[in-house]
């Protein structure tokens, strides 16, 4: 009776250690698996020279992976809560855009929520929220729908470039790679939108011709370049495929149109400022790079590129598509590997390349058919191992009753206090602040976003006096502060900041002087402006 929980606890600790160590180094896992497999094959062939390899089992596994991916994307979309620390930030800013507030505030503004994502990361979800109504399910559906559309478009594109078996294997490998990053490809951040744009670009390049192809390429690549400043690098292999199939004229035309579209939001929307955006990007560019992140990115990059490396090592001429796609892919990878080494970034920035790699993989399978399983079985086994470890962690994150209850708790408070200027404050209980999105939906106001403030602090930008003044003047009437920990006592997660306190003592003092705890809900203390409270 007592032994069972101990065994389960020990097992879970082991799984967690594996996730943090082995599962984040897939290249080494692959090399170990490859060595073991080659040894096993040698022994097997020695015993039975006629023994054949089991290609159909990989096809079956890839089909199962796609089915699992679709199921988990739909399931996550139907849960009205977010599990990543920056998901609430992006959704909240998207809603601010929808109600006409600036996406990038000024450097001395009391509000602190500007991120360095391109405007489309907020414009697209903001438009959907405006159209269908502000709610968690709508916000979540954007990521899920984008992920499903991305995989559909990528599959359709790949099917045109290769046969059905190669399509199943390439798409299966692609979704397994997606799942290595838990819910990244279907969460409420720009990543699913990037995947849709890459998928649409591949679709246009592979299946369309003439003006419609140019139109789809221009729109998808324009949005892709706008979502993150590394966008042009993700577009390179897609344009390479387009060039191989359509020639230079349509490519040139779509590059020009995409460039125009990429800057259009700054001129079309009055609440999207080019000057402020450039300022925040420049500020973020000051953060430097990390060797540890660079090393990890290189390992992930080499791991993802294994199908490409295998193809290159085969002495057979490359087809016209591969001749252009592979160099473009390799050059773009080098750029992103370096850019993704800045503090806070990581190997997940390589994910928008995966549909392009899947296209290359599908076109290469036939050429590497005489020895694909030497790498493919260890490769797929490594992916399955990493996915299993990461997905169990993802499910544990989602299945946190306190997290889902916190949304209900905040909603109940909002319903009981309509029209009040409420905000969710911060303590060390970070996950309890995720429900702040619900408050932003109700109030259309957002004073403090900790993920943004952390980045600003990392760039050496202190909290301005105007923010302290906003606390002093009770710009927010009521703060819902998670009950664990002291209000606004929270440390920066970036090691290079020395894990400094995020909020200055002056702000904490201003809060203590001007707010009084007047009640509690299940998960939050209610702090109200002390002016007017007798």
């Amino acid at each position, binding site marked *: 009776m007592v032994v069972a929980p101990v065994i389960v606890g020990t097992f879970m600790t082991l799984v967690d250690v594996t996730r943090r160590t082995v599962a984040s180094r897939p290249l080494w896992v692959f090399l170990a698996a490859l060595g073991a497999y080659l040894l096993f094959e040698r022994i097997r062939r020695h015993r039975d020279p006629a023994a054949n390899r089991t290609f159909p089992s990989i096809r079956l596994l890839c089909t199962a992976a796609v089915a699992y991916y679709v199921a988990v994307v739909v399931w996550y979309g139907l849960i009205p809560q977010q599990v990543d620390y920056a998901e609430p930030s992006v959704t909240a800013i998207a809603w601010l855009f929808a109600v006409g507030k600036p996406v990038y505030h000024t450097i001395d503004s009391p509000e602190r929520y500007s991120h360095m994502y391109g405007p489309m990361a907020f414009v697209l979800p903001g438009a959907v929220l405006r159209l269908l109504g502000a709610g968690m399910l709508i916000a979540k559906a954007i990521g899920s729908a984008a992920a499903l559309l991305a995989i559909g478009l990528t599959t359709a594109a790949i099917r045109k470039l290769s046969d059905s078996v190669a399509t199943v294997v390439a798409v299966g490998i692609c979704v397994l790679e997606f799942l290595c990053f838990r819910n990244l490809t279907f969460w409420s951040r720009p990543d699913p939108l990037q995947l849709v744009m890459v998928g649409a670009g591949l679709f246009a390049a592979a299946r369309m011709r003439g003006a419609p192809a140019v139109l789809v390429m221009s729109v998808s690549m324009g949005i892709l370049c706008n979502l993150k400043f590394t966008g042009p690098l993700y577009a390179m292999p897609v344009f390479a495929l387009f060039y191989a199939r359509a020639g230079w004229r349509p490519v040139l035309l779509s590059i020009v149109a995409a460039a125009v579209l990429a800057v259009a939001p700054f001129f079309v929307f009055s609440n999207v400022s080019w000057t402020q955006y450039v300022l925040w990007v420049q500020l973020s560019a000051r953060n430097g*790079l990390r060797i*540890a992140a660079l090393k990890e990115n290189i390992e992930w990059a080499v791991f993802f590129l294994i199908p490409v490396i295998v193809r290159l090592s085969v002495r057979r*001429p490359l087809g016209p598509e591969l001749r252009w796609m592979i160099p473009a892919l390799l050059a773009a990878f080098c750029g992103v590997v370096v850019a993704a080494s800045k503090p806070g970034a990581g190997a997940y920035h390589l994910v928008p390349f995966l549909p392009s790699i899947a296209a290359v993989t599908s076109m290469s399978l036939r050429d590497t058919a005489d020895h694909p399983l030497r790498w493919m079985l260890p490769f797929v086994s490594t992916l399955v191992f990493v996915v299993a470890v990461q997905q169990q962690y993802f499910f544990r994150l989602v299945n946190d009753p306190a997290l889902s209850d916190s949304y209900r708790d905040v909603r109940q408070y909002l319903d009981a206090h309509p029209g009040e200027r409420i905000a969710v404050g911060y303590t060390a209980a970070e996950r309890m602040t995720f429900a702040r999105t619900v408050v932003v939906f109700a109030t259309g106001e957002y004073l403090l976003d900790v993920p943004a403030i952390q980045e600003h602090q990392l760039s050496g930008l202190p909290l301005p006096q105007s923010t302290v003044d906003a606390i002093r003047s009770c710009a927010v009437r009521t703060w819902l502060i998670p009950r664990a920990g002291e209000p606004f006592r929270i440390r920066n997660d970036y090691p290079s900041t020395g894990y400094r306190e995020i909020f200055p003592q002056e702000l904490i003092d201003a809060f203590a002087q001007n707010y009084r705890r007047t009640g509690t809900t299940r998960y939050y203390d209610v702090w109200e402006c002390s002016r007017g409270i007798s």
Partner: protein
Amino acid sequence: MQPGDFVIAIESLIWKWARAVWWLECPAFLVLVLRFSFERGCMNPYELLEPLMRRQSTAVAIALVYLSAHVWLLAVLVLLARQWPRGGERLEIMTLERRLQLAGMAGALALEAVPRVVWVWLYHGAGMCR
């Protein structure tokens, strides 16, 4: 020009590039690796060369040296795999110079992969951490 000739020309170009670049790349990368090993053994192992990596210009330069070493090794290994004789005959393309260059770069990368615990033991044991 036949497609086969084009491939041969590209391969020959990459060999030339690898040969020339090695003299710049390998010593620079080796210096970096040795410095990293010291910092891993004696200082903060998570923020290597922090003062230089905080400045964008030096950070990008160091990152490029670090990345180029990996690209060099991968490119040479892919070329070797492509030109590997299938019938068991001698690998003509591997001249002594190429063998030494490959061994040098692979050795530097192997050093970079050594676990931190080894450096801690080594540098602390030698009394080099002050």
